[in-house]
């Protein structure tokens, strides 16, 4: 009996030491979160990066921020997803270029136990922990409202949108169109999809304006399209004739608000998306149940009147 007792005691003590060793280790390793934007060097995504950094410092996590070559290149994004999984990322925060074409890589990541958070532009994947985006549909609708407030009478619209397959673009246009369908005085004359390059976008908008001289209002749904629309209006000197409602954050757009090419600017909160993306990732890693599947960041409407309000400044102008 005695010998047996000693053995049991010995086993228990060993177990104890082992467990205490494990318990000690738990708190000390920082989580690694890979942030994969569409394109890392636009003003918009640089603001996302700022939000990511602030959150990373606050939550003591390491992050990486790397995007594709342009806002159509979903293949590079998929490569980045795969690389992040190999590098041992605990979570991936993704702004998907293509709503459908990244699903396979995401599935592999999910199987490897990596948490997926979607920001800015959604993805067709059920196991996303949380999606943080501006309510794109609402944004489109809001753009419509603003456009309607700029003039009485007939509104002839030209829509300038970006890549056909991007979820946020699709949603924004849908929101815009559905609101406009309710107004009899609105006609949507033309809608184009441009590439993510300012000069090419500008050329395409110029083409559209020249083809349809009756367009008196334009809506542009992201940075490149907004700048394209703005520059086109400048080029054709249509600043007073054509109302432009743009969705963008970049400095030149803001300049154009002051100079009149853009009449209403819907400024989003990419900083919030970056910050909340990391916050969400931290919660996902801790296996906290998400309170909502969708978190919406709101946009601010800026025009020449409120551009320099103290709060607008903070919202609109990035630090550098």
């Amino acid at each position, binding site marked *: 009996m005695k010998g047996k007792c000693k053995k049991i005691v010995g086993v228990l003590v060993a177990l104890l030491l082992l467990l205490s060793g494990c318990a000690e280790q738990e708190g000390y390793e920082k989580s690694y979160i890979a942030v994969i934007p569409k394109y890392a060097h636009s003003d918009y995504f640089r603001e996302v990066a700022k939000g990511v950094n602030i959150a990373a410092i606050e939550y003591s996590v390491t992050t990486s921020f790397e995007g594709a070559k342009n806002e159509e290149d979903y293949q590079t994004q998929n490569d980045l997803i795969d690389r992040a999984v190999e590098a041992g990322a605990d979570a991936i925060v993704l702004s998907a270029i293509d709503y459908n074409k990244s699903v396979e890589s995401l599935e592999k990541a999910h199987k490897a136990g990596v948490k997926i958070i979607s920001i800015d532009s959604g993805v067709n994947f059920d196991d996303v922990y949380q999606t943080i985006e501006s309510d794109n549909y609402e944004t489109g609708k809001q753009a419509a409202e603003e456009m309607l407030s700029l003039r009485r009478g007939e509104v002839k619209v030209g829509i300038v949108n970006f890549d056909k397959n991007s979820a946020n673009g699709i949603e924004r246009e849908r929101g815009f169109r559905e609101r406009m369908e309710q107004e009899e005085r609105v006609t949507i004359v033309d809608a184009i999809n441009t590439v993510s390059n300012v000069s090419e976008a500008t050329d395409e908008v110029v083409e559209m304006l020249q083809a349809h001289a009756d367009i008196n209002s334009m809506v542009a749904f992201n940075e490149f399209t907004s700048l394209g629309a703005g520059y086109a209006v400048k080029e054709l000197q249509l600043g007073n004739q054509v109302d432009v409602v743009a969705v963008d954050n970049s400095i030149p757009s803001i300049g154009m608000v002051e100079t009149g090419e853009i009449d209403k600017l819907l400024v989003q909160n990419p900083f*919030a998306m970056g910050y909340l993306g990391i916050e969400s990732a931290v919660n996902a890693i801790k296996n906290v149940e998400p309170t909502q599947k969708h978190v919406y960041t709101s946009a601010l409407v800026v025009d020449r009147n409120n551009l320099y309000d103290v709060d607008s400044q903070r919202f609109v102008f990035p630090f550098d």
Partner: protein
Amino acid sequence: MNRLEKNQKNKKGLSLQFLVAAIMIMISLILILVLSVFFINRYVQNITESALRNSEQVVSQTAATIDNIKEQMEIRMELLVQEVGHCSSQEEAQKYMDNFSEMQQDVAGVYIYDYQGDILIHGKNGQNIKGYDIKNLSYAEELFSSNEKIILSKPHVQSCYVNYYPWVVTMAMKVDVDYLSEACYVVIDYQFSSIATYIDNVGVGQRGYCYIIDRYGDIIYHPKQRLIYVGVAEENMDVVAKLKNGEALLSTDIYCKQEIDNGQWNIVGVSYVNELIELQVKSFRLFVMLIAAVSIVLSILSSAIVSRRVSHPVRCLVKAMKEFERNAEAFEYQSENSIQEIKSLSDSFSHMVFMIRELLQRIKQEEISLRKTELKALEAQINPHFLYNTLDSIQWMCERGKAEEAVEMIGALAKLFRISISKGRDLITIRNEVQHAENYLKIQKFRYRDEFVYSLEFDEEILDYYCNKITLQPIIENSIYHGIDTEIETGEIVIRGCRDGNDIIMQVKDNGQGMTEEQAATILQKERSDDSGIGLKNVNDRIKIYFGETYGISIDSELDYGTTISIRLPIVRSEEDYRSER
């Protein structure tokens, strides 16, 4: 088990093993609980303390750095003003300002304003002033008209350049120069981004950050100011307002405030301890629970061992006692090797068993003996030889016509038997016993005539005391048959009875043939082999059984001279005395 036995079992009380185990477990649990609560509290206290210290340190360091930066800004401001004051013309001033602008990396713009805030001169910085009418955010009338020597604005966006909107803080000083018609302001727009980046990168503790507020509690810069504006994040401004300079406060989170520059700016550090604490406490709690579990197991094991060593021998003892209760005679006890106290118990038990068995044996023997003697006494009441001889004598007397003598003999015989029976009682008065002896002697006298003579001398006082019946008669019989029968001379039998202290002595003395010492010894040992009545042994045994070892018969005899048989009895005043004791 019927219900009574079952009840008894329940009322038996806790088993020793259970009790020992329960106590040990309780003690160790209480100890562990107390210790772990104590340690967790201390631990949490320590973590909180160190988090507070850490907050204070970080905030104070941040404040020092920013204070330094501000100082540098002021120094350069004063230098610029001095130089501009020394310039003799506007062109010179322009050149100097261009230089200044180029050389100083963190200067976003340097100007001279007039009193209305219009730009008179601006240093070249590679940017283009906007041509149209702008809202110059670098000029605020209320601010500039204050009496401060050096004016410092809150951070804002610089708005006077085309497509160039850096965040700046504006510093201004009044200046009076010859080459400009009115006194005006020298204004420097310092890049705020470096301060902002610095603040952004300050992490406090495991999770936390810093921000800047003015003396009224309004945010000057907050890393998350974009989120605060849209309500996604909040700052607990009430708590912060209550903070004094340099103080760290713990409500649900740690807040720490440090002043810069007389409180114009204040650095606030926020740190979230709870998560940190929770994490540590959780792992600590796990650890403690593990120890508790191990401890319980160890307690159970060791209590099992202890109680085995204690309760097992106890249980064996209990079992042994039960067995003994059930069957005392056949019980064999082996004491086991165990704890001292238990061993001593079992040894005592062992002795007790031995003694009880001895006593039981003795009682049994005595019972047997008593029954035997009583049986014998019963038998003696109908001694055939004696009766036969007596009746023979009576017949002879009747044949001879000696009627009176015959009547007397018959009477004596009747009385003899009456007393013999005595209604079955064991004790009779000495008076009756003497009568019994007398009747016997009368009858024998008829037979033996002149062969012997007798005398009875009994003290009056002892006649009412009690004694065993049929005590004297067998002794007298013995004297007659062994003493007188064989002698030629007339035998003499003297029967006496008197008190001796608390005892009674009865004596039967004859002058018969006597006996040797050996005979004297053996006569009290052996049973009479013939049926001729109770022997001396019988009388002796009965006396001893009834009254004890100190009483009984003693023989004093000399060969050819005679025998004296003494009977010692206690004074028995009533039958009940001895009956109840029995």
